[in-house]
């Protein structure tokens, strides 16, 4: 909202400078964006061209003698319309104009001591100017006094504060609302608006009918004026519109905007002769069309409110009028519409069509009293500045309650919520400044909230008003007195924090990426099959193709991070992220915390660098699972199901036979680097309970170690041999460790040698050699038999 200081000063006196006003308004909740002079140019003076001749050395420049009162300046001027006898705006040496600073100097050998200005050079936006204002220097009326301030003469000596208002303060989208706010701020009276006019004998009543067919229009007022003269508006109206950001058009259109600015009530003036005797307000029919004022054909939908005659739609209610009934230069008779439309409907329509000064006011809600006031004020100004004759009577449709709201609140409640201790007198004084009529009895207030404050309706609103006026920042911070209770962090969050620290300690960098990804990323790096009942979650209205779908796995994100870094020649990438994966099934939407790891390149530095391989990532996986208490409970099951992973180097991670993650090498068809990834489904994982961490007796008796190497088929996994060993070893075999694997010359082509170190121990006694040898031999026998192995070494 651009507030013209001159405009608001019609209704309230302001004793402070505009900057202070802007700051003080901010402190009561009305933030300002800028505070500037309407014409920021300096050192301007009214001059009279007393001589003007062609520049001897130019085909378009003129040399002018300009009387500025104290002296006569020679100024070189290029404007086509400069001539002797003109009153002009002179920018003196040193003047600051939006285009730069004016310096005296020589122009093609002729001294020039300033500049004769066009209006466009003073800093007014071009949309407010005529071509004449842009092309040539401004011609001041002859009564302009030489040597005086031309800005003041033109009544453009205004200042504009641009407020960024909160969405609840629709009332401040009006000069009157601002006047009440400033009045409350500085304890000043608000002056009444002039609304007097003479009415004709002829009445609108009986000659015009309204047919309101929708609930979305609770108030509609129509009044008719006749015999208007369309002409230019008086200067003050034009200037105030310009200061408020609205382009002046003609006196009638300008008055409708002027009254909207004053009262906050948007108006629409129809050419009454083109409109006919009846207006209908209804919802548009789907597909109906309207040619709006801006000469655009709009196709309407059933959520738009329209104003129509029997034969055509004449306006898009609250947003824009139609072309057929617009005010033209030959318009004589006007029908004034002042109405209230449902804010939500207007918002919907305006979003589709145009956000106008009118729609932005309708959207926030209006004060019905202003709907009446605006029509009165219109008549007053039309009579005064457009020679209008006002017909008596008004056609009125009203389907809303205009009575004041009552709010009851105690002083105690106000003080309790604000945490301060105001006295009765202080609160009463604030209510008086706000011009909220009230009664107070035993520190209990009954407050009548004026209808202009549509945002105030409950106790808490009153508390806020009192707080604002007292000064929110004067409230002193207190130490809350609440019972001492321990704060808690839920177990999932604790686990996530633990895992993040652990992974950082293991040398990985934590990343943060977007949950919205490309649709094709959706089910990459998962075992979800296209025909399963699990679906991707997509947003209805994505910002771009890149961000349409919520990710299911975090691995595609990590892979893009790798690509990003690779493009910058950073090829050692060990990263992880914890975030949510999303999907939908018959039960609805789901989101689950996942931990994803991607590793490639060097992970161990030093003279001999070590690069990541499958076993590094497997080690990290084991480290994480072991540290969470799941030792010996998980297992890798090789899988070729995940098409983004190497079929020979990938596995599902199972815990107690439930899939809790994936691990593997990224498929060489996707990337040429050796990239290893892992993803753990944290919620499934952490749902498994773990044993209490508890001391276990350390065996006092020595353990016996036996090594053995088998030659077996290459395809046989260590796990399969281990299972046989474990079964044959029984209870006394306490540990099995693979310590060597060999393939090559010394074994057959499809064979490998695999060496195990076996630990035997009994917690309650020392084992004898014979005993151990017996078990050991049994193990060897079993492995030879079940795994078709030969002992290579023992």
């Amino acid at each position, binding site marked *: 909202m651009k507030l013209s200081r001159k405009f608001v000063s019609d209704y309230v006196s302001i004793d402070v400078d505009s900057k202070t006003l802007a700051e003080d308004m901010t402190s009561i909740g009305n933030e300002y964006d800028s505070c500037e002079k309407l014409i920021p140019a300096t050192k301007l003076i009214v001059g009279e061209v007393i001589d003007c001749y062609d520049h001897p050395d130019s085909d378009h420049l003129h040399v002018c003698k300009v009387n500025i009162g104290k002296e006569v300046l020679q100024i070189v001027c290029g404007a086509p319309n400069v001539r002797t006898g003109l009153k002009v705006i002179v920018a003196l040496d040193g003047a600051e104009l939006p285009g730069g600073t004016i310096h005296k100097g020589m122009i093609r050998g002729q001294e020039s001591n300033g500049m004769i200005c066009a209006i466009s050079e003073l800093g007014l936006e071009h949309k407010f100017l005529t071509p004449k204002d842009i092309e040539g220097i401004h011609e001041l009326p002859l009564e302009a006094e030489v040597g005086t301030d031309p800005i003041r003469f033109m009544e453009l000596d205004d200042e504009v504060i641009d407020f960024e208002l909160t969405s609840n303060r629709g009332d401040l989208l009006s000069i009157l609302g601002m006047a009440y706010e400033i009045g409350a701020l500085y304890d000043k009276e608000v002056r009444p608006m002039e609304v007097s006019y003479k009415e004709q004998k002829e009445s609108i009543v009986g000659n015009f009918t309204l047919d309101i067919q929708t609930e979305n229009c609770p108030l509609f007022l129509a009044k008719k004026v006749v015999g208007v003269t369309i002409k230019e508006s008086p200067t003050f109206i034009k200037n105030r519109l310009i200061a408020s950001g609205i382009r002046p058009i003609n006196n009638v259109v300008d008055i409708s905007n002027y009254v909207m600015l004053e009262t906050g009530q948007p108006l629409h003036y129809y050419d009454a002769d083109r409109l006919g005797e009846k207006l209908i307000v209804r919802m548009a029919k789907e597909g109906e069309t309207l040619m709006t004022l801006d000469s655009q054909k709009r196709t309407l939908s059933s959520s738009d409110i329209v104003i129509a005659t029997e034969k055509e739609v004449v306006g898009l209610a609250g947003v824009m009028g139609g072309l057929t009934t617009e005010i033209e230069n030959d318009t004589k008779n006007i029908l004034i519409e002042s109405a209230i439309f449902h804010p939500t409907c207007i918002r919907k329509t305006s979003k589709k069509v145009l956000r106008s000064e009118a729609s932005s006011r309708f959207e926030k809600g209006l004060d019905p009293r202003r709907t009446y006031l605006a029509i009165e004020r219109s008549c007053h100004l039309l009579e005064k500045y457009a020679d209008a004759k006002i017909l008596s009577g008004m056609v009125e449709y009203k389907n809303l309650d205009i009575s004041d709201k009552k709010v009851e609140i105690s002083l105690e409640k106000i003080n309790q919520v604000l945490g301060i201790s105001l006295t009765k007198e202080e609160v009463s004084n604030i209510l008086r400044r706000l011009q909220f009529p009230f009664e107070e009895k035993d520190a209990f207030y009954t407050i009548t909230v004026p209808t202009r404050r549509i945002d105030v309706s409950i106790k808490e609103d009153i508390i*806020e008003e009192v707080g604002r006026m007292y000064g929110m920042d004067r409230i002193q911070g207190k130490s809350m007195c609440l019972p*001492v209770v321990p704060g808690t962090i839920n177990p999932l969050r604790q686990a996530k924090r633990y895992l993040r620290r652990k992974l950082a300690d293991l040398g990985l960098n934590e990343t*943060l990426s977007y949950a919205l990804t490309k649709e094709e990323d959706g089910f990459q790096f998962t075992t979800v099959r296209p025909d399963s009942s699990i679906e991707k979650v997509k947003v209805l209205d994505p910002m771009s193709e890149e961000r349409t779908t919520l990710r299911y796995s975090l691995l595609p994100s990590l892979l893009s991070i790798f690509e990003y870094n690779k493009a910058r020649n950073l090829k050692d990438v060990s990263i992880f992220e914890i975030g949510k994966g999303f999907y939908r099934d018959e039960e609805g939407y789901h989101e689950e915390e996942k931990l994803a790891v991607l590793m490639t390149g060097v992970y161990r530095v030093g003279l001999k660098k070590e690069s990541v391989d499958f076993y590094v990532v497997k080690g990290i996986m084991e480290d994480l699972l072991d540290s969470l208490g799941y030792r010996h409970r998980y297992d890798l099951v090789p899988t070729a199901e995940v098409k983004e992973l190497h079929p020979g180097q990938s596995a599902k991670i199972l815990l107690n036979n439930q899939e809790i993650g994936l691990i593997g090498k990224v498929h060489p068809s996707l990337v040429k680097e050796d990239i290893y990834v892992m993803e753990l489904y944290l919620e499934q994982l952490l749902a498994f309970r773990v044993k209490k961490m508890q001391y276990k007796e350390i065996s006092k008796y020595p353990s016996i170690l036996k090594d053995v190497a088998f030659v077996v088929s290459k395809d046989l996994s260590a796990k399969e041999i281990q299972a046989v060993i474990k079964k044959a070893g029984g209870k006394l075999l306490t540990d099995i460790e693979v310590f060597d694997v060999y393939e090559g010359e010394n074994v057959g082509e499809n064979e490998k040698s695999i060496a195990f170190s076996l630990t035997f121990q009994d917690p309650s006694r020392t084992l004898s050699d014979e005993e151990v040898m017996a078990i050991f031999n049994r193990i060897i026998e079993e492995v030879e038999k079940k795994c078709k192995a030969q002992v290579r070494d023992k």
Partner: protein
Amino acid sequence: METQEKKRVIIESLEKDMKEVHSSRECQDLKVKYLGKKGLVTELTANMKDLSNEERKEVGQISNEVKNEVTEKITQLENHWKEEELNQKLEKERLDLSLPSKKFKRGSLHPFQRIIDDVEDFFVSMGYDVIDGPELETDENCFQRLNVPIGHPARDTQDTFYIDAEYLLRTQTSSTQARVMQANTEKTPIRMICPGKVYRRDDDATHSHQFGQVEGLVIDQNISLADLKGTLELFAKKMLGEDTKVRFRPSFFPFTEPSVEVDVTCFKCGGKGCPLCKQTGWIEVLGAGVVHPNVLRMGGYDPEVWTGFAFGTGLDRFAMFRYEIPDIRYLYTNDIRFLEQFDRKDEENEIK
């Protein structure tokens, strides 16, 4: 030969032998030669049984002397060589300590998460519970129960990613307020924060379509704006430094009434005015207020009995402030050279 004479010969021989010794192992050989079963010293007492008692006594005494002397000499020599050998070994094992170490690359924690950790720790220390809420939220929890009914301007669909008519990506962590109030069926006091990711259709240098927020909610009896201010003063000091001051400005949010915007003194200039704070000395960091009675009512709390405050703030901005990161997008780009910078313990309360 007299025993005395034999003694002299042995000692002489030993001294000669000792000169030829160059290692601790050769000392062992000497021990065998002199003190072994068939050693020269042992031989002294070889034919004791043929001697008279007196002779025996004399021989015994002398041979003992020889034995002690020989043992001592050899031991001394052996110790000398052992020490010498150890010194040689140590010298040989001398390392160039300046060569590169063997280690994992140093990992790092993301600045955004570091801020979350700090925020959580602070509020847990004040007795708040840290609550998780879903990112895929219902319109009801994200808007309606926060006093933003259907059609309210504050929920302009331009800013919200809708999934369908009912579900959306939460635009604010405040949605968890509604959940916590409903979930607390006993209607006991609440003190909670909810940090997490939120989403809005908005992307430029200062806005990311995904960003972090933390929401705080306290519901109890007689909670006031002064309590809110006291809490936020402590929070600001913890996050931005001891000298930080807090300023309240009235504002508007649908879910609080009264509502305030909260500014903190600019940590760059300390409040004197600089480009970061646009010469005002203050930076807006937080929105807060007294919980709106409609929100309490919809959460099952009687506004005549209960009051509360709520606040919400952007976590990305705190990360940007603390680590002086100029562009929010850097947080989401994941350049390794960016990530690696956050590889150590945070300084205590350091901000400048």
